[in-house]
């Protein structure tokens, strides 16, 4: 499948943290062509194994991108059928006002997020952000009918259609981190054309947005020699300090900081230069907020890398990425993994 088509499928699909299994079929059927084995673990992570060439001393590389997305959840049903809701993952309440939503009950239901009309607001209110607890979702049915289809705890997503912008840029919801899943797909395609010694475990992790939960347990099980997280980074816009962002269209961000193994970082930079793949540095001195953090501190410690696809307007429903960045991330990842052999591994990991 074309990677952009796959990304569209993922972005338009629904996979709020804890309820990711709706995407299982799409992901498994798409990766199947290139994988040696695929299975789902106890918490719902999808593990896609591509075996390496060296049968004797196979070492393991785990690549993680999270399949869950931020979203909303029904917490209360009002007497007139309005839904009260809470957020799952970090959401700026200002970005969801007036949105169209889909409530994933026993069937998908269309709804809108409403609030008090401006005419009725005090002048002092107008400059204040509206809190989530003061918003409602209207799905247009009376309570009796609502209760037939909706339960407390049902997930809700913003209704959004993945769309191409000018040039190579695309827009959609939850490109964080479905762009990462798509990059893994692009990478496994690349790998099918080149030799690699390592057994590579591509993991679509669950529950990253609520605390990297899937990455902890899947890393424990796989116990890789190297862990690589593919996530998104803050794409630069005028209001953001330059040091906190990476630029759109200039290739993957390679994270620098305590979360990253210095030897592996040196190697991936060298690979990028060798193959003329554009890249930039992303500085995060402490733990990254990605699956890479979970990987690093699992068991006796896993040497870890993090790659970031630049993305604008993170955690809104209009996230923007450049498809070239996604492809370059995949390419860099593939060439890097192919460059690791049982001979150079120990030297790279040594302090």
């Amino acid at each position, binding site marked *: 499948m074309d990677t952009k088509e796959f990304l569209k499928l993922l972005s338009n699909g629904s996979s709020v943290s804890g309820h990711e299994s709706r995407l299982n079929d799409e992901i498994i059927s798409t990766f199947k062509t290139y994988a040696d084995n695929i299975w789902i673990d106890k918490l719902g992570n999808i593990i896609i194994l591509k075996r390496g060439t060296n049968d004797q001393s196979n070492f393991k590389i785990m690549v993680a991108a999270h399949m869950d997305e931020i979203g909303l959840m029904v917490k209360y049903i009002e007497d007139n059928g309005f839904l009260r809701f809470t957020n799952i993952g970090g959401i700026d309440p200002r970005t969801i006002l007036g949105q169209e939503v889909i409530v994933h009950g026993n069937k998908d239901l269309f709804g809108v997020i409403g609030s008090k009309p401006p005419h009725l607001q005090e002048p002092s209110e107008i400059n204040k952000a509206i809190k989530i607890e003061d918003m409602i979702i209207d799905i247009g049915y009376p309570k009796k009918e609502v209760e037939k289809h909706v339960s407390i705890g049902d997930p809700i997503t913003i209704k959004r259609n993945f769309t191409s912008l000018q040039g190579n840029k695309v827009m959609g919801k939850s490109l964080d981190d479905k762009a990462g899943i798509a990059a893994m797909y692009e990478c496994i395609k690349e790998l099918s054309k080149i030799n690699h010694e390592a057994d590579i475990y591509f993991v679509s992790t669950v529950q990253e947005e609520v605390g990297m939960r899937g990455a902890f347990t899947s890393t424990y099980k796989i116990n890789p020699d190297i862990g690589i997280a593919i996530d998104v980074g803050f794409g630069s816009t005028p209001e953001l300090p330059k040091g906190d962002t990476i630029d759109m269209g200039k290739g993957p961000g390679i994270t*620098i900081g305590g979360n990253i193994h210095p030897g592996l970082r040196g190697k991936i930079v060298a690979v990028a230069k060798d193959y003329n793949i554009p890249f930039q*540095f992303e500085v995060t*001195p402490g733990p990254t907020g990605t699956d890479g953090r979970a990987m690093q501190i699992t068991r006796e410690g896993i040497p870890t890398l993090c790659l970031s696809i630049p993305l604008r307007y993170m955690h809104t429903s209009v996230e923007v990425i450049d498809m070239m960045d996604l492809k370059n991330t995949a390419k860099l990842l593939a060439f890097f993994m192919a460059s690791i052999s049982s001979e150079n591994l120990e030297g790279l990991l040594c302090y």
Partner: protein
Amino acid sequence: MLLKRLTEASGVSGNEKEVRDIIIDEIRDHVDDVKVDRLGNVIAFKKGKNNHKKLMVTAHMDEVGLMVTDIDNMGLLKFTTVGGIDKRILVSKQVLVGKNKIFGVIGAKPIHLQKREEWQKALNIDQLYIDIGVNTKEEAEKLVSIGDYVLFHGQYIEFGENLVKAKALDNRVGCSLLVELLKEIEDTSFYGVFTVMEEIGLVGAGPAAYSVDPDISIILEGTLCYDIPKLDKHLIPTYLNMGPAISLVDRTTLYNMDFRNKIVKIARKNNLPYQYRKTSMGGNDSGKILTTKEGSITATLSVPCRNIHSPTSVMSKNDYNNTYKLLKAILTEYKKGEL
């Protein structure tokens, strides 16, 4: 002198190599095994009389510091903090940037050009930059890269009555104690572990504890000391010169009462001064060690340090020596199987 070398070494969290190398060099000939794990922790083992409980003594190697995030057109460096630093201490300090320790200063707007109300406000990190003396971005890029670690420039100075001023006393003081212990103690089995990246979220300790799997752990620290007059006594976390601080509770650990009481007893038996750490703020590697695998009993012993996390930390050599004596006395009891 070991503590001088350790405090003057560079070891901002995630970049502990210099400190690690000094430590390995010091202990190599005195331990039965020493290895560096995948995260950079140093795990040393001292083989002696067998004891049914596995003891691990730890100290973190890293210190707080800064990291370069961007280089502007004038060749000035923008930066972010690594670990918990009070932004107000940064201005007008000397720093060393990157592997080659390029000297730089963190400047400030002259007071003459400031409005009255500006004085009242703390300077934000984004108002500060490091000046290494170059004129252009190109010149700077030859010397410095984005992602370079920046450390405070601070010499080890002895002053006053038995006091020491240095940077990174938190926690080179713990490293120094542990190195001395590994060198001196004979025929007692225990692990000495020097961890990485404590200051950015207790990163190294969990994996190290996973690998060692101890029953009992002692965490050595430099801890906060704020013993100024007129402050209510119960709000003073520790005093200088009143001996090692024994932790009661912090954000990461509720210290085991039986083990804590045993340590107090050992201190009394040996006529050593001790005090309790009277704040529940902060936390340390104990939090991770306590809950790794099936768990470990933990205690934290600290040398009180004034102005912690600043380039001008201050400790008392008396406290250092008494902490070491207490530590040794604990090891003696451990050897007898009485912990």
